[in-house]
């Protein structure tokens, strides 16, 4: 016996009623199928890292999504709407077009920032990696001085195998210390040709994709100092805790291993915030 559900030739009320629900159920099924198909297409096109960064960027607190021009004081308060993809940002293009003289003057401030060594020859990603393009066209990727001290002596570093393809803002390598672990973002698109490590001063040597290096989203020259000062502020805020009241200015130079110097802090939380791993 056929169920009444499949008897559309009977009562017109029944037909209309069930027809409406067939439409609803079909809508839901088509929506799910469409999402699955599009997801499969994304994965085949290698867009997983870009999607991951898009989602992670949305989850970052507003203070971590500040535009580079907000950090340097040109556009106070501006939040980046592009996931740090400055290459396609009209505002960035306009501001940079009128800047050469200013940037040259600011560039003289680079190098040492409150005890952190940030060589001017390098370009910096806001996830605390640096890039140095070599004469042979490849580039070294490393962890900046602030990031290095933040992690201290890692127990384990998981680097991608040579031949792996990296995407800008996608995972580059992972680090673990004790039970805390964090992934470090790749500053560039590229292919890994050699791996280094904490002892060699750089972690990866990569070759550019077909269209060459695109460094437009990286911080250089006079942008590095105000950005780093903000990062130091963030770290101090996290370490100070809510219970700390008004404090005197500190001094001295940063130690080489922050977690060792302050073991009681929530280092996994701090790493994930400062390395943009929400």
């Amino acid at each position: 016996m056929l169920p009444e559900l499949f008897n559309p030739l009977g009562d017109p009320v029944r037909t209309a009623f069930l027809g409406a629900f067939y439409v609803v159920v079909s809508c839901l099924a088509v929506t799910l199928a469409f999402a699955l198909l599009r997801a499969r297409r994304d994965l085949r096109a290698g867009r997983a890292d870009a999607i991951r960064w898009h989602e992670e960027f949305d989850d970052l607190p507003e203070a971590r999504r500040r535009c580079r021009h907000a950090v340097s004081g040109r556009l106070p308060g501006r939040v980046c709407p592009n996931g740090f993809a400055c290459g396609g940002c009209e505002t960035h293009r306009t501001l940079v077009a009128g800047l050469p003289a200013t940037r040259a003057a600011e560039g003289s401030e680079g190098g040492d920032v409150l005890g952190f060594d940030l060589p001017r020859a390098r370009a910096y990603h806001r996830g605390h990696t640096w890039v140095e393009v070599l004469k042979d066209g490849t580039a070294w990727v490393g962890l900046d001085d602030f990031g290095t001290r933040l992690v201290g002596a890692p127990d384990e570093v998981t680097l991608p195998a040579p031949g792996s393809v990296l995407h800008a803002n996608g995972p580059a390598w992972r680090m673990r210390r004790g039970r805390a672990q964090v992934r470090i973002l790749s500053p560039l698109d590229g292919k890994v040709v050699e791996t280094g490590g904490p002892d060699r001063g750089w972690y990866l040597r990569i070759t550019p994709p077909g269209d060459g290096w695109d460094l437009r989203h990286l911080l250089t020259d006079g942008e590095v100092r105000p950005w780093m000062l903000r990062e130091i502020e963030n770290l101090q805020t996290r370490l100070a805790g809510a219970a700390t009241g008004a404090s005197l200015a500190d001094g001295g130079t940063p130690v080489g291993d922050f977690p060792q110097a302050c073991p009681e802090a929530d280092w996994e939380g701090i790493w994930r915030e400062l390395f943009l791993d929400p």
Partner: protein
Amino acid sequence: MDRSWLPATRSRAPLPRFALWLLPWVLLLAWGGYAAGLCLVRGLNQTNMDNRFVFGLWIFLDLAIIALGAGAFVSGVLVYLLKRDEVKDVIGTAVVVGFACYSGAIGALMVDVGQPLRAWFTFWHPNPHSMLAEITFCLTCYLAVLAIEYVPLVLRHRRARSASPLLAFQFELHHLMIVLAAVGAFLSFFHQGSLGGLFGVLRGRPFAFREGFAVWPTTFFLFVLSAVATGPAFLILITRTASALTGKRLVRQGTVDFLGRLSAWLLIAYAGVKSLDTLVWLNRTTPASGFHPYQFYSQPPFGGWILLTEIVLLALVPGLILLGKARRRSTPWLLTGAALACAGVTLNRFVLTIQTLALPTLPVDRLLLYVPSWQEVATFAAIVAYGVILYSLSYRYLPLFPHEEEAAAAPPVRVSGAGPRPPQETRHAA
């Protein structure tokens, strides 16, 4: 212990304290689970319902939480169809609360109807002339919509995000939310309305019977309006309670203002329409049925005070409270307004279920008394506990509030030479 499962940039209570918070709710859930099991195994003789008092605490609970869960479809329409971006602050909460309310309601219905293994029957042999059939289909479909809306939220958890297929699926699903919001609005409109219409068509119950338009009695439209008015107020109540418990401001004031204002106007409109409907019912519908309206309000404890409380104290007054900007910005006033609105819709559903069945319909009848059994109370409590547990877990592990950190951040330490600050940060500088 669960540090790596928590959102990195949001502070959460230590696990032992969180576990302590969950403990009483888990116990309540276990107690309710036991009671529901008794009802399913031994039958409805475990309850104090009978052949005359067929709708009890559970149906009242269903109607109330379905109305309170309307914030899910209202906020979905506002965000995805009307592009009100400020409502994104509460969309995560709305989805979780909606899912908890609807799944809880269906759970209670399964215990109430019994024989859950035969639940397919209603879909296989539906009676489209019954509003209950429409309610069954709408509730099930809308729960499916809410589950699909909940999926991207769960898959945005950092552990799930590390699996690329899940990540891509939730990303693409999120981009299709406009379809789900439209389907959800369609389903919600009809099942919220049909839940009201179900009582409005009862000619044999003149206390509930209403005239209307075409096949829909006025209670159909009143249920839709009251749910739409109360949904945003319930979201305010939930998020402000969560704020108070966590010591954080989770939602921006602009969002609260918008939701409060929306709820206020809708509540005032509801109070007006409900008053008009009541006047027509008192002066035309009831006399035409051979009753004097006074009869319905001369059966203690159901006096005229219930009607006045429902329309004035719990609809008009919260509407006026939430209408004022200064009162919306005062937490006690805001919470009072939102709580009164939620109490109003709850009382309305109580009147339509319990009072309707309790009142006599024949001269030989007397007022029926119904006191729920402990099994009914325990099942009721379990549904509430389930909602609290689901929301607590979602808040702890999922990114429910996109603007949580800014309000929660400690005042930043000022480092010499850190460059100009944006104006909003300057206010907090030490």
